[in-house]
């Protein structure tokens, strides 16, 4: 993931990662490493997955649909950051209005 794609906006890998981390700390009461597999136990509550998705969408003005909803995109702070930056790269002009 390159930062250049989103250079025009204030959203960087660092701000996305820290927002995601903040949510995880509040919601799970643990602080994961950026590469830690959050779903190592294999079974994720759909409620938690849903909260995570809605939180990313609201925080960054993106919409996560279809094939992008796969578990691998949400497996770690790093993969969620990459997903958000990619979606913002694709849709930033529309989202920013």
């Amino acid at each position: 993931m390159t930062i250049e794609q989103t250079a025009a906006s204030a959203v960087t890998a660092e701000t996305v990662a820290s927002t995601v981390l903040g949510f995880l700390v509040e919601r799970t009461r643990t602080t994961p490493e950026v590469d830690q597999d959050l779903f190592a136990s294999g079974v994720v509550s759909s409620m938690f997955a849903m909260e995570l998705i809605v939180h990313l969408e609201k925080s960054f003005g993106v919409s996560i649909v279809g094939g992008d909803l796969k578990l691998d995109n949400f497996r770690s702070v790093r993969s969620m950051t990459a997903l958000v930056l990619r979606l913002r790269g694709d849709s930033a002009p529309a989202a920013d209005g």
Partner: protein
Amino acid sequence: MPDPTPMVKCLVWDLDNTLWQGTLLEDATVELADAVREVVSTLDSRGILQSISSKNDHDLAMARLEQLGIAEYFVLPRISWGPKSEAVRAIADQLRFAHTAMAFIDDQPAERAEVSFHLPEVRCYSAEQVLSLVDLPEFSPATVTVDSRRRRQMYQASFQREAEQARFTGPDEEFLRSLNLEMRIGRAGDEELSRVEELTLRTSQMNATGVHYSDAALRGLLADPGHEVLVTTLSDRFGPHGAVGVLLLAVQPEVWHLKLLATSCRVVSFGAGAVLLNWLTDQASRAGAHLVADFRRTDRNRMMEVAYRFAGYTDQSCPCVAALPPAEAEDVQRLHLVPTARPAPTTMRLVAPDLAADHALARPGPVR
């Protein structure tokens, strides 16, 4: 489809001169008529929750309810000097019921008017109607199951559970393990069928197809060797959650077609849907069959799509999808998964039939 009489899911009782005869603050020995006690226990057995909104001394009123032996029938009683509309609203909020599912009974016309003014959708009844409530259509659900008869206890257990969760400070997974959850997946029989119908009617957020399977339709599929109708129940150390999931599967040697998956929104936070999908994936993997799941997007079931996608289902095409009979509605998506072996859940015990073995036996060719 307009429903002429939406069911009452919770009836809120006034106490003085409605539930019991007389005014408690003037007569500490107010009595409960046997016929009224009968109404309370009948409504309870139909799965209709009952609560209290009374302007009274809280401790005195609760003590009298205990003495009369009916305190246990009431969930979330509100006994205070505040407006009754606020009490009814708070009870509905805590139960997560719409106001259209709430009813209020009080001998005082002014109290009924106050509730109606602020909560126009709440149905109000006068004390003269107490004995006839059980004959009204809105208090007469079409199906009464073992779960509806236990509904009040299930709500009471869930209040205890929520209180415990609020006190718990560790990660969710540790909390889940502390509940001693046990999921049972079983083939539906006669008794389970009506629970299934009730579940698909009551469950909209987690119904993947948005298709309602009637009792008759499912009964027909029970006898069909090509279909599996599975009902999931969940319990924990606070008590049973009842039937929380239903799964309708059309089984062929090469592909297992998941036509219906509905899980109760009460147990989504326990990961029940994910555990169920995970189990199915493992079973299909052992049977050597692909999985195809029907999904029709509604404005309320996005969580179900997330559950499928997180379980590994994709839009990828596969010859097995093309071989299935066409979907009943145009907007049904068919999500596909090539299953792999999955570990058992870490948050609950799982008791389930060995679908893979049962269907492997029916397959032609060598079987280990």
